[in-house]
């Protein structure tokens, strides 16, 4: 199996990834090969098996809630320090809505 270019471009759109033509060709083959391998799971009848999202340990239902107390947080200035384009205390982005 090989994914078509159209399928690859569709998934790249879902993932917000711009791909070069070479990458589209390469990932069509790679993903196809890997997904074919993954079909192996269909050998197993899992009709009566519960899915496992992650390892869970027994604990009180509210045990993971921490006390509702004020604490120091990363401030706006520090949070913006790594932004490629901060301004006026915000993250600046290209215009989204036309006036």
């Amino acid at each position: 199996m090989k994914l078509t270019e159209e399928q690859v471009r569709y998934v790249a759109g879902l993932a917000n990834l711009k791909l070069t033509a070479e990458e589209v060709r390469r990932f069509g083959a790679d993903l196809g090969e890997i997904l074919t391998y993954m079909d192996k799971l269909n050998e197993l009848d899992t009709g009566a098996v519960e899915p496992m999202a992650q390892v869970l340990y027994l604990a009180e239902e509210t045990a993971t809630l921490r006390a509702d107390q004020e604490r120091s947080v990363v401030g706006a200035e520090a949070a913006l320090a790594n932004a490629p384009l901060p301004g006026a205390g915000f993250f600046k982005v290209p215009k989204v809505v036309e006036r």
Partner: protein
Amino acid sequence: MEIASLTIDQIREGLAARRFSALELATQALEFAQAANPKTNAYLHFCPERALAAARRVDAALARGDDPGALAGVPVAVKDVIVTKGVRTTCGSRLLAQYVPPYDATAVIRLEQAGGVILGKANCDEFAMGSSNENSAFGPVRNPVALDRVPGGSSGGSAAAVAQGAAVVALGSDTGGSVRQPASFCGVVGVTPTYGRVSRYGLVAFASSLDHIGQLGRTVRDAARLLQVVAGRDEMDSTSAFAPVPDYLALADGRVRGMKLGLPREYFKDLASETGDLIARGVDLLRRLGCEVREISLPHTPYAIACYYIICTAEASSNLARYDGMRYTTRSAGSETLSDMYRNTRGEGFGAECKRRIMLGAYVLSSGYYDAYYLKAQKVRTLIARDFSEAFREVDAIVTPVSPFPAFKLGEKLDDPLQMYLSDIYTITGDLAGIPCLSVPCGSTAAGLPVGMQILTRHFDEAGMFRLADAFQRAGGCAG
């Protein structure tokens, strides 16, 4: 002081006897690590100011007669997916080349509170995705044992630094074997504790249901000391476990006689002969130490790779959505629209393996495929975890190889992603089940390449794992 082979016990003793100060040790360790780095590229960057400040705090505590902490003066490397306040944290990615975190990971805070001295940040595969450390945007790491070979991945820099003597212990991260496999390739000890044992606050997320912070050292005792310090509940990570942390070193008392060990037959079928022979010799040593060895079966092993790579890529595609060119990453220049800004930033910033995994993850989660892939994989995960809980009714620990083969040559597997994924077969099952596992050195091949033996135990039984591995290592670990 022989800097490249120091143990934590020797550092404690040296500091207590005033043979050297923590500042002298840190200075020498930094010099050594910086001089050794061009050979391996194990560190991405050093943080000498932070290291010397930590060492001065240890010396001040010693001068006051206070307890300087369990890791006093110990030089540590921290994998560059674990955030350090004010010290660049790149995740091996071009996207985060200039990212300076505004906070410290809990594990970092704890190890520094215990007197640990962070020398710098260790190289790794981009966002911890890889089995060879060739996916770092800042160049691959070379295996200090054989410089034309990979150190394993994704914590390749952490393993290489410890093997090279450029750190005494290191923090890594393990999602599918990223601590144990490089430990085995470089001939050091690598620990993946129980899921939830160590807080992941400040560990940059890859696959959240599988991510662990792991520990590396040249000895089992050193790795256990590091885990001792960083383990335990943290209210900043709601998935961190409440289970109390026992005294690992006190419990590593050499009493392994009568321990029941299981060898899963599925793990020994397709083993390269030299690796297989060394593991067999290691098992013989465990027998001589008085362990009872029997064959067991983990029948769903053949499905683990497919299960793992569906779950981890699905979670990765979701976790990596945050790198959008807006908040922490570099931004692609000249994008007219918001959506172009996302697409261009991510298309230009991520390396090939990250893109491949994001694409796979987006595919298996996409409408029409979710049930067939993601839900199916979660059900198979239940079966794999059940295999282990059934096996642990019969045995106290499971012993396996870590990797089907020793360190391979740089570039050898780079063009075949599926082959690279298949090499993770022995390590991913422990992550899927969430149980503690480690790699301990088990001799070397005729060409001098290290081989690691894996030990897995029940949830939260790190103590049993350390006891067995420590006894094995002290009995010679089938070296030579």
